[in-house]
């Protein structure tokens, strides 16, 4: 049942992605409405799937990395629909939904079981939940960075194309990347610190040779650098966007490492 619903959700997200991309080309209200509808349908199936999963586990579905990513995806889709509605930036879906699909497929590609009961503690839920909120924020940070670079390019080459008409202003996009960075970073930081404390309690060392831990630290360093650059050195625009993209790449590798490499977080 859970697996079927997850598959239904992913199909909904894939359909929404296709429609959102089509909306970039053919700006039909109907196409956008269908994209939102598909995303919401997927999200509804996803919600039920997560509830069933919690009942199965008798705990929040955060015990394993695939489950946790699934929850992150659930948060991202909800935020995507809400932000689109609030800001009127209707092309956001075209940039966020492909990542949603990628993360969903990544999460179902590997399926590890529940956490060993000995390791389960309140700390681990909080650790995972915070890290996942961070991931959700950075998905929007990445989407904002891509949109900024596209719009900046259009304005510099002076040949307005599809993106010029569809995307909001540079300042709006730059603010979006800054705000999502400022939001995601504390969550990521606290999540990592809690993870380290917990690892120390469980294994006696905060930094064990775990691939996810290693890459997440790398991602954290990149985001910390970007935030510092923005706050102190006045970084903005293109440079900040490049760093957001690199940071997100590190984050994707982090999750991939947790899912597919042997270590403390995964199989």
């Amino acid at each position, binding site marked *: 049942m859970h697996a079927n619903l997850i598959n239904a959700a992913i199909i909904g997200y894939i359909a929404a992605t296709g429609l959102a991309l089509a909306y970039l080309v053919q*700006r*039909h*209200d109907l196409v956008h409405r269908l994209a939102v509808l598909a995303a919401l349908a997927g999200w509804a199936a996803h919600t039920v799937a997560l509830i069933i999963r919690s009942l199965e586990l008798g705990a929040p579905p955060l015990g394993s990395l695939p489950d946790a990513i699934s929850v992150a995806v659930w948060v991202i889709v909800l935020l995507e629909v809400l932000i689109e509605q609030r800001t009127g930036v209707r092309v956001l879906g075209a940039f966020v939904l492909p990542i949603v699909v990628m993360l969903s497929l990544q999460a179902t590609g590997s399926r590890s079981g529940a956490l060993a009961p000995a390791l389960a503690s309140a700390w681990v839920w909080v650790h995972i939940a915070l890290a996942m909120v961070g991931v959700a924020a950075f998905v929007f940070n990445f989407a904002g960075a891509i949109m900024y670079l596209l*719009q900046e390019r259009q*304005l*510099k080459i*002076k*040949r*307005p*194309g599809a993106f*010029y*008409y569809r*995307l*909001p*202003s*540079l*300042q*709006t996009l*730059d*603010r979006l990347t800054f705000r999502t960075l400022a939001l995601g970073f504390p969550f990521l930081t606290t999540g990592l610190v809690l993870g380290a404390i917990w690892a120390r309690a469980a294994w006696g060392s905060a930094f064990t040779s775990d691939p996810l831990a290693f890459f997440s630290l790398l991602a954290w360093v990149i985001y910390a650098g970007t935030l510092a650059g923005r706050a102190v050195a*006045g*970084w*903005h*625009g*293109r*440079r900040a966007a490049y760093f957001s993209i690199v940071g997100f790449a590190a984050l994707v590798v982090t999750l991939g490492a947790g899912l597919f490499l042997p270590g403390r977080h995964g199989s």
Partner: protein
Amino acid sequence: MALFVAGLSHKNAPVGLREQLAVEEDKLRELLQDLQASDVLREVVVLSTCNRVEVYGVAEAPGEARALAFRHLCRHRGMDLATVEPMLYTHLEADAVRHAFRVSASLDSMMIGEPQILGQVKDAFALAQACEAVGPHLHPLFSQAFKVAKRVRTETEVARHAVSVSFAAVELAKKIFDGLAGRAVLLVGAGEMSELAAKHLVEHGAFPIYVANRTLARAQELARALAGTAVPWEELPTALATVDIVVTSTGAVEPVVTRAAVTRVMHGRRGRPLFFIDIAVPRDVEAGVDDLDDVYRYDIDDLKQVVDANLRERAREAQRAETLIEREVAKFLARQGDVEVIPTIVSLRDRLEDIRLGEVRKTLARLPDASPETRAAIEALSSAMVNKILHAPITKLRESSRAGASRSWLELVHELFALGRRA
């Protein structure tokens, strides 16, 4: 009775002929009254703009009505109908409806999406209304045309993207800045086009306005006109550091704003973009500033390129508008068809209901002891019979109206059931 539109427009008639034929309002009033009095035209609206002269009418013989209308139009100007006749196009019924919708929605305009035409159609309609020249055919047609025009405007982008250089500059500014409210504008040099651009920027909330000119007096004069502040020419480099948008249009041969000057101010701007609108030829801003971060420079050719792209975007949107109009035409015709047959259906129903009630009353009078059940049964029986009998003719009438062939059916029904004369 047929709906038609006949006329000529920028598409097929040269401007010389169009301006010769165009009529001013008081002459138009006269014309409408003449046409009304003729008995050939039941209803008529005349649209006369610099791009089209069109007669929308309802007549038994559209060909005759068209000739009459244009003979009148030609006579006003002492022209010969024979010179105009070959240019005229005529659309009938559904095609006339489509034409009215397309014209009102500015899809038939020289500049697709231009906003004036809708107002001109509204004026033409209001004038015809004032002359009591519109009735049950043209009234719904034009009311619907105005609604369709509004839908096209809001649901497609035919009228969205700027087709003038100065508006294109405003739109560009909006893609760089997060709104124009409170953005400082510096005008360098004076010129009609730069003043226009500045005015558009101010209309969108840009403030304050600074004006720099080699002669301070001219700067002050322009500053007064735009409610801005004059800046001495020597302070131009410092002004660059604070403003957001710079509009240049000097007659200088050498660039007035150099790459070096811009590089110098960009450090202190902390990432605030700087947008140059360079309308001058030769250009006032060194093209080298293009590779500086956060600097956007559009010269007159760049702006024209943007306008061209906007026009292509409008044309693409016009395609969508055409499909929307097709749907609206079909809807309108279906509704019109129903409108034609509904009065007949109503009187047919009334007629049979009258008969039924009369007979039921008679029957019940002969059955004073009938139980309430029996009375109810008689009521039900008679109602059911009437409904069954009516079903086929009503369906047939509706079908015929959708097929556009209701007239003979309507007459037949009126004859058969003695419904009296139709309006």
